């Protein structure tokens, strides 16, 4: 499903990723760990082309990301549900509007959008906050909105960059449980986090550990 061959990424003179080769199958739960600056976020950003590939090849469902045209990029991104480290919620739009944006961009019908958005708002426990603006919410609530936005389009891959980074243990656990439910439905999930302890206690999946842009271990966590 996702294949990386000798992928490198350079920022100025510094290599952020060095010869990453990786295979991720449909329905896997991948945990990308490592200290700050290890290249976790860069690896995630390369997958949805928020960062260009400097060297190597990335294939997603057989689609070569190095050759993808600008007009096809939005369609690639719709395969992903992305949970950003800084939430990336639009402050001038309500919780409902932030989540609905994904479906509106995909050209879905208003009646379908309403039904789907209300459904994910209920499942994330944010129904009562539908009309609230992101900046009036707590960090945990904002993260739940970000998760709701990531799953509303029923993507085949969920990418989560430090999804529990700014949350208390209870909220963090709730987010991970929610992602686990989607994993059970067959969604491929990639979580980048430095909190290995929390992940090990919560998730069964594969841990890819990065350090200084290199893969130093690639193990199944039990």
């Amino acid at each position: 499903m996702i294949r990386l061959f000798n992928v490198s990424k350079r920022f100025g003179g510094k290599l952020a990723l060095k010869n990453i080769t990786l295979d991720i199958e449909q329905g896997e739960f991948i945990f990308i760990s490592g200290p700050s600056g290890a290249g976790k976020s860069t690896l995630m950003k390369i997958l949805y082309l928020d960062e260009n590939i400097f060297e190597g090849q990335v294939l997603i469902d057989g689609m070569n990301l190095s050759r993808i045209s600008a007009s096809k990029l939005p369609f690639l991104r719709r395969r992903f549900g992305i949970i950003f480290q800084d939430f990336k919620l639009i402050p001038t739009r309500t919780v409902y509007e932030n989540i609905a944006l994904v479906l509106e961009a995909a050209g879905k019908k208003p009646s379908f959008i309403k039904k789907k958005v209300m459904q994910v708002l209920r499942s994330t426990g944010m129904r009562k906050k539908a009309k609230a603006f992101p900046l009036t919410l707590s960090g945990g609530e904002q993260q739940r909105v970000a998760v709701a936005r990531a799953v509303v389009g029923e993507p085949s891959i969920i990418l989560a960059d430090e999804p529990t980074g700014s949350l208390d243990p209870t909220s963090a656990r709730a987010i991970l449980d929610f992602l686990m439910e989607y994993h059970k439905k067959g969604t491929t999930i990639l979580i980048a986090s430095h909190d290995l302890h929390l992940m090990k206690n919560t998730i069964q999946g594969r841990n890819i550990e990065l350090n200084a842009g290199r893969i130093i271990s690639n193990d199944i966590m039990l």
Partner: protein
Amino acid sequence: MIHFLKRAIADILSNKFLNLITIITISLSILMVSVFLLFFENAGRVIESWNQGGRAMIYLKDDFNADKLPQLKAQINSLGDIDEIVYISKEKALDTLKKSMASQTTFLTTIKKNPLPDALEIKIRSHNNLKEVQTLAQNIKAIDIVEDIEYGQGWLGKFLKIFNLFKITGYAMCGFFFLMALFITANTVRLAFYSRKIEVDIMRLVGATETFIKAPFYIEGLIQGFAGGVLGLGALLTTYTMVSSGITQSLAFYVYFDIQFLSFKMVMLIIFSSTFLGWFGCYLSLKQIFT
């Protein structure tokens, strides 16, 4: 489409001040352009009435007789775009003169020979270009039987020269105001875009196409242009209503017509141009940003 319209209105409302300034600037530009157009439309009508719709009088030589009329008409018709030719015999001309002078015609009874010449009154179809009219007049005058031709060449020529000078200045000013409004609209869209850059970046990351991102900006530009056009014309109509009756009364001795507001066709053209201006300003900005 409804989604984009709602989005555009929401964006306008969230940035009221900037949008208001843009709409006012467009409306002022449209007002200036409309004032010029109002002047030209009315001045054009004055000239038309003075020019009697492009009429000219051809005075014929004494040796003319009615038998030569069909040949002369055909000759004149072949020289240019003539709408109609009316023959006025010297007898008819004298009768008309007598009728028009009414009680002051006693001296005419003492005249033994009719001093008036036979004449043709012609109506030139396209008479807005003075040079064309002049050329046609010269060609007609070159016909043997023609003594002279009169089409108000003296004063009308001078007036048209001044009027054309005004017209060129007016066009230049219209162009200037149009460009000014265009740059301000383009700048507003650019500012609006950068003020929503985070939003646009997020939209891109969640899979929005460029069309999806750009559409509300275009609709915003169209709304700004349309509102500016309507507001500018509204201001002109209000001023016209308040001022026109006074001007018409004070000029009643000099001109025998009402100052009219812009024609419906012109109003539609202005609103369309203004709306297009809003769209085009947006297009220029987004083209620059997205490349």
